[in-house]
């Protein structure tokens, strides 16, 4: 993705406002739509049923085909996009027709149907309002459910004026009425109608179409021939599974309890001479369904929620964040539907915050699939040296970091912080200042020792960033854990957790790092392995067992380590004596003498480790602070590890949103549980001249315990 294209979207003030407003409105509407519905139970059921369906895909296709043909419909199975296009052209030609009137179908966009038909003399008319706007503009949808979200009313007025030959003012009700009037003749004159379908049922051969505008009913009713173009993954066994899709889709897509129209269509009901053709599109789906690593991507019901909550989509929109299918799942499906060459660049755009996983209607591990797909992309020049040679060699890596302490000297400004970097690295400091690499990393400040007491034993795994940039945070961690009664040991041979390599698709290096750290961290018998970086936690706890699944000895070690890994707040929360820690409680608000702070949830702590209550418990119960929550407290800060190096211009915008929400709380302290978030947020606050301090929970605990 070129930086100019990205910058272009960032500078598009209408797009930015539209997406920002949507990002704010969507969670509210969604929550209201799901009132009284157990979302977790619903999506678990969908995931399970879809999994089963994917395993039985050839059988389901055969059953659906037989049922649909019993109703009199003709079913065409098409392996490749060109097959589907040719079949549809043939159907249209066999009717002596040259005018296709269409309702919305992403499958049509997927196979670029309109261009092909138009080139073969068939006029195509999109009747979904958003799709019509896109068709008139000659663009592609920037959202799966709201295709024209990037267009403002002025754009639409201009397009409609040109299309209708009459002057259209930028007035939305007027424009909608204009579309109604203009497209009406298309419904009445269209010789062939085309729709997609949201779900197809194998037992009855019926389709269900979920729409809002009423055009779906018209294109399936008025023309004498109806073609439904459907991806084979939409087939479910029966109404039982279909109901769950119908229940979840409108709520998750647009925050509607149900759309205006859910149409069930079985066979042709158009009277004499009316035909129903069902074109089943494979285009890689059969192979994907059988793929053990990525098959779950086909559980997708195409609600678009992954885009709705994505902090990167919110900044750049779907023309950057996706190909034909946009949002998180778009990144995953693109290599399978359109080829890896179309996917390479967009796969790098995910920041890894996992917001999409939290809302996915089919419980797909979207972020995990994106990371795994990066293994398959071509690696940039230099990356292989960086990860393959340097990171794997701990001494070389740490020597390089030490050398960086000297190299950065000329760049440091007041207070030692770095505000500009030379040449191409300068973008890294855009919108924020950077902390310097410490003169002495934590590993040089601490004595190597072995466990010697009867206390509970903690192995401290600091992570590189804290070690080399925030050694005082590491000291605070060790000191506070000791004050809380633990014996703490820092094994000096610990090395990078391997996440930067894994996120860059260097899986072999990530595996090496996993083995190295497993040997170091299991060398002494500890009760807990404590991290102060949730990204390291994820790596140690979840990624190591996954990466080493095929190596029985190391996999056993990885499982053993995983059981001992705790985030700092997770462990410390256990030490809170609620009877004595809460005397000032009752009503936390406005308690005399309590420091008011706000708390930023790190993506990897909340959605990677499921930890979000514990830090708050520690901050109120142990530190004695009062928390004033910010808007979107669990939304990404824009750091994303090496992401802010790859896409500094996007990371900066994500950060600005965070800074705005922090400032609005009026507090003077931001607590975080991640050194990366700390670096990002304190740099952003400093750059805008906001006088707030950012502290890791471990430092706040240490300060509080020191005060006694």
């Amino acid at each position, binding site marked *: 993705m070129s930086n100019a294209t990205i910058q272009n979207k960032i500078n598009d003030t209408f797009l930015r406002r539209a997406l920002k407003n949507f990002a704010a409105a969507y969670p509210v509407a969604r929550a209201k739509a799901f009132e009284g519905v157990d979302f977790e139970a619903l999506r678990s059921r969908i995931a399970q049923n879809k999994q089963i369906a994917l395993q039985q895909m050839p059988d389901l296709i055969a059953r659906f085909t037989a049922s649909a043909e019993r109703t009199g419909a003709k079913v065409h199975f098409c392996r490749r996009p060109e097959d589907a296009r040719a079949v549809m052209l043939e159907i249209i030609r066999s009717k002596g027709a040259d005018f296709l009137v269409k309702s919305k179908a992403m499958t049509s966009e997927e196979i670029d149907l309109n261009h092909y038909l138009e080139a073969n003399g068939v006029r195509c008319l999109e009747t979904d309002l958003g799709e019509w706007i896109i068709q008139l503009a000659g663009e592609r949808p920037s959202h799966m459910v709201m295709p024209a979200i990037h267009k403002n009313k002025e754009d639409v007025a201009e397009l409609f004026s040109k299309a209708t030959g009459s002057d259209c003012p930028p007035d*939305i009700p007027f424009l909608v*009425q204009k579309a109604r009037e203009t497209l009406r003749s298309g419904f009445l004159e269209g010789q062939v109608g085309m729709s997609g379908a949201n779900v197809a049922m194998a037992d009855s051969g019926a389709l269900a179409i979920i729409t809002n505008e*009423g055009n779906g*009913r*018209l294109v399936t009713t008025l023309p004498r021939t109806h073609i439904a173009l459907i991806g084979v993954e939409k087939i479910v066994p029966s109404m039982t599974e279909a*109901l769950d899709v119908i229940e979840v889709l409108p709520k998750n897509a647009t925050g509607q309890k*149900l759309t*205006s129209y859910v149409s069930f269509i*079985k*066979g042709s009901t158009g009277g004499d001479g009316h035909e129903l053709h069902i074109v089943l599109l494979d285009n890689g789906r059969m192979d994907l369904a059988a793929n053990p690593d990525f098959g779950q991507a086909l559980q997708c019901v195409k609600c678009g929620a992954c885009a709705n909550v994505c902090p990167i989509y919110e900044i750049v929109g779907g023309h950057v964040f996706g190909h034909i299918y946009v949002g998180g799942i778009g990144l995953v499906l693109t290599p399978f539907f359109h080829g890896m060459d179309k996917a390479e660049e967009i796969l790098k755009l995910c920041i890894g915050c996992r917001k999409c996983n939290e809302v996915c209607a089919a419980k797909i591990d979207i972020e995990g699939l994106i990371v795994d797909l990066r293994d398959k992309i071509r690696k940039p020049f230099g990356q292989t040296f960086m990860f393959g040679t340097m990171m794997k060699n701990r001494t070389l890596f740490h020597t390089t970091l030490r050398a960086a302490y000297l190299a950065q000297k000329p760049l440091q400004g007041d207070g030692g912080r770095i505000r500009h970097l030379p040449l191409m690295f300068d973008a890294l400091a855009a919108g924020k200042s950077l902390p310097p690499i410490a003169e002495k990393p934590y590993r040089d400040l601490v004595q190597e020792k072995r466990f010697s007491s009867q206390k509970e034993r903690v192995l401290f795994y600091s992570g590189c960033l804290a070690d080399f940039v925030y050694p005082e945070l590491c000291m605070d961690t060790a000191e506070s854990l000791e004050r809380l009664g633990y014996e703490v040991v820092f094994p000096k041979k610990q090395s990078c957790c391997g996440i930067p390599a894994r996120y860059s698709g260097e899986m072999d290096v990530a595996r090496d790092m996993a083995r190295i750290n497993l040997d170091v961290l299991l060398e002494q018998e500890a009760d807990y392995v404590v991290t102060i970086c949730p990204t390291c936690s994820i790596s140690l706890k979840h990624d190591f067992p996954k990466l080493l699944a095929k190596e029985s000895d190391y996999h056993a070690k990885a499982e053993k380590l995983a059981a001992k890994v705790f985030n700092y707040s997770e462990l410390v929360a256990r030490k809170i004596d609620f009877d004595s820690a809460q005397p000032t409680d009752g009503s936390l608000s406005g308690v005399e003498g309590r420091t008011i702070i706000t708390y930023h949830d790190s993506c990897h702590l909340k959605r990677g480790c499921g930890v979000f209550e514990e830090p708050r418990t520690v901050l109120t119960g142990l530190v004695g602070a009062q928390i004033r929550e910010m808007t979107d407290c669990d939304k990404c800060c824009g750091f994303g590890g090496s992401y802010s190096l790859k896409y500094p211009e996007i990371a900066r915008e994500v950060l600005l949103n965070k800074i705005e929400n922090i400032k609005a709380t009026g507090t003077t302290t931001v607590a975080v549980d991640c050194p990366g978030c700390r670096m990002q947020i304190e740099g952003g606050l400093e750059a805008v001249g906001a006088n707030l301090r950012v502290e890791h929970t471990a430092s706040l605990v240490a300060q509080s315990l020191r005060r006694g």
Partner: protein
Amino acid sequence: MCDRFRLAAEAVGAVIKHFSCIGEARDYLMGIAGGGAVSCSTLPTHLRDALAIDASGTAVPADAVLCISRAEAGIAATGSLLIDLKGPEGRAATALAPIHAVFLDPTTIVPTLYDLGERLNRMLTSGDQAYFSLTTGPSRTADIERVLTIGVHGPIELHILMIEGCCHE
């Protein structure tokens, strides 16, 4: 249940009216039609008779101002109507006419979509062909600047006429 249905249907822009007999409903319908053409080809004969609209008075779908249908059932959670649309002419009218009025027997309202599951399944598995719809409020779009606008291709108004026993002949 009836109140929950009303709240949900009104929240999506439907108009709900209660009538004690077909005669009252007839006056209301003639009022909203405002003298325009009426299509009621999906309406069961006994309701058509009771409304005193004979077949010759039924407009072609594209010309109708008002389309009158009957719901098989309602869903309280979403304010939705289950309408059988197997006949192509009546189906076209439900989407083409700017006003859609639907009779609903309040005793047929069920709590959620799932409570209709068995019935929907029966409608699909019996008979060779079927076309039916869950209709929730009037036609809508938010495709321009996400501004909710009622009435794009389908009806601009949806009136739900509640009469107990109106499903029975």
